[in-house]
């Protein structure tokens, strides 16, 4: 590699890795970064049905934050995000620890817990919407068993619709968190555990004091991935609640779609997309940075 490039073919051969990476990288530059700039620009214009390129400053953002629909979407995202992440992690972690107790048929049970990940949010939403059907769904069945006050028609109740989203999203993702934790549990250093149990620590204590704390990176990954999923959530709302009743269960992604494709408010739609991007970046950039750095040192 010290020999200077002489012929053209030689030079091409040396540059081949760059040449191979170039088209894909160029596509990413254009379709990701170029588009972000484009959307950012449009978010500063008065675009309605078609893009309009004369800048008007931050007025679309002002309008965005004055809209009740947007505050509802943000509030929903907060409630949905927090509950979804918490529940998915608690349930996923619990299932992983339980499955780690030398369970017979572990593989089979794992398959059951994880299959929702293969399904789209549209299917999940459709199925749960049917189960929550107020007249023919689970509510009627359970009331028929004698529990008269049982209520499961969440999708039609403006205060409960968000919780319907949380429930279905947790159903879809808890198995994934379980798989994540299970593989981490199995890579914990066995010698430390043996030493602790020789010292007389109870299995319970070993979990709480040694195993779970050593899994902090996995907790971090799970939180980051789940919050990313939460911010992007779009299909589930479409299929399960349609954002309703009214716009009670709208999330930012649905707000953006509504403004852009249905209400001819491209400028406001672009502004909402930029706010979403900023939120994701605030979570992802420090995470990716520490991951990539950690890799170099490790």
């Amino acid at each position, binding site marked *: 590699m010290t020999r200077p490039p002489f012929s053209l073919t030689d030079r091409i051969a040396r540059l*081949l*890795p*760059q040449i*191979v*990476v170039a088209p*894909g*990288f160029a*596509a990413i530059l254009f*379709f990701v970064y170029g588009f*972000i700039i484009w959307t950012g620009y*449009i978010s500063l214009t008065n675009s309605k049905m078609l*893009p309009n390129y004369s800048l008007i400053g931050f007025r679309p953002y002002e309008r965005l934050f004055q809209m009740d629909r947007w505050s509802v979407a943000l509030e929903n995202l907060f409630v949905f995000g927090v509950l979804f992440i918490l529940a998915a992690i608690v349930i996923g972690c619990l299932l992983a620890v*339980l*499955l780690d*107790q030398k*369970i017979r048929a572990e593989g089979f*049970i794992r*398959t*059951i817990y*994880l*299959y929702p*990940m*293969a399904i*789209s*949010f*549209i*299917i999940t939403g*459709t*199925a749960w919407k*049917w*189960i929550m*059907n107020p007249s*023919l769904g*689970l509510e*009627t*069945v359970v009331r028929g068993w004698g529990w008269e006050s049982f209520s499961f028609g969440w999708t039609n109740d403006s205060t409960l619709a968000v919780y319907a989203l949380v429930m279905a999203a947790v*159903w879809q993702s808890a198995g994934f968190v379980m*798989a*994540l934790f299970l*593989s981490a*549990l199995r890579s914990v250093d066995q010698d430390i*555990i043996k030493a602790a149990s020789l010292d007389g620590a109870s*299995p319970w204590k070993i*979990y709480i004091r040694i195993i779970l704390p050593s899994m902090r990176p996995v907790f971090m990954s799970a939180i980051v991935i789940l919050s990313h999923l939460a*911010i*992007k959530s*779009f299909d589930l709302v*479409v*299929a399960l609640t*349609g954002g309703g009743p009214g716009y009670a269960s709208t999330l930012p*992604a649905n707000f953006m*779609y509504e403004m*852009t*494709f249905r209400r001819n408010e491209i400028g406001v739609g672009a502004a909402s*997309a930029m706010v979403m*991007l900023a939120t*994701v970046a605030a979570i*992802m950039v420090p995470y*990716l940075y520490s991951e*990539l750095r950690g890799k170099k040192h490790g």
Partner: protein
Amino acid sequence: MADSASFTPGNTGSNLALRLALWTVLIVFAIWFLLPAYVVVGTSLKDLEEIRGGSLLALPHEINFSAWRHAWSEACIGVECSGLEPYFWNSVGMAIPSVIISTLLGALTGYALTKWKFKGANLVFAMILFGCFVPFQVVILPMAQTLGKIGITNTVYGLILVHSVYGMAFTTLFFRNYYVTIPDELVRAATIDGAGFFTIFRRIILPLSPPIIVVSVIWQFTQIWNDFLFGASFTTGGAQPIMVAMNNLVNTTTGVKQYNVDMAAALITAAPTLFVYIIAGRYFVRGLTAGSVKG
């Protein structure tokens, strides 16, 4: 897990109780996970009368596939009453090329970035990686404009382009993380023997790649088949992928609501990815964790 950390060292009564509690929790969750599948399959096999008259959880009186036939070839989606069949093939035609293109791009990029480290390779990787996490809302508007300019709006080619580009971010991550674990010495030795970039890829890297290729293909297929946002944003009418058509079928049926057809449609739509999961679940899990544990 280590023997010492399990809850099973003895045969005391409290241990039995713990074991029982453990199984109860596991089974309750299994029921929760299986409930939608049971209800959807059950409903799709009933007729409307049985759905209205009977319990949601009751088994169907007889196995009746007419709702399936209806969903596949007769149900109305918008004004077209062609069932899901044409949309199913739309999705197949969209998914197969996108999976191949994005996997190929990811493999080559991952290989070049790990085994032929050039100046700035890490920055290039970081910038591609961020593409995995960009909320797509930020790209759909300019994408709609671009597809219009090229003249492939509302075609399968438009969706292939979209899925190949954004899928490449994930496949690059997969292959890069996998190729990092292949010793550089292998490549160095081959370079000394005079082998070039593509020869080494073909002779050394590709033969070692089947596991990660399977992971990438499964992940991409699932993502693309299950996509709704791009399909809904860039296609209308007859060009829609099945996920969008299925949602329209469920939400816009006029007249009597045919729950059994809705559920059959959901099952038909979910079948390909479920099938992949059942035959290759192991790789499926690996894809999920590969995308998350360590960038």
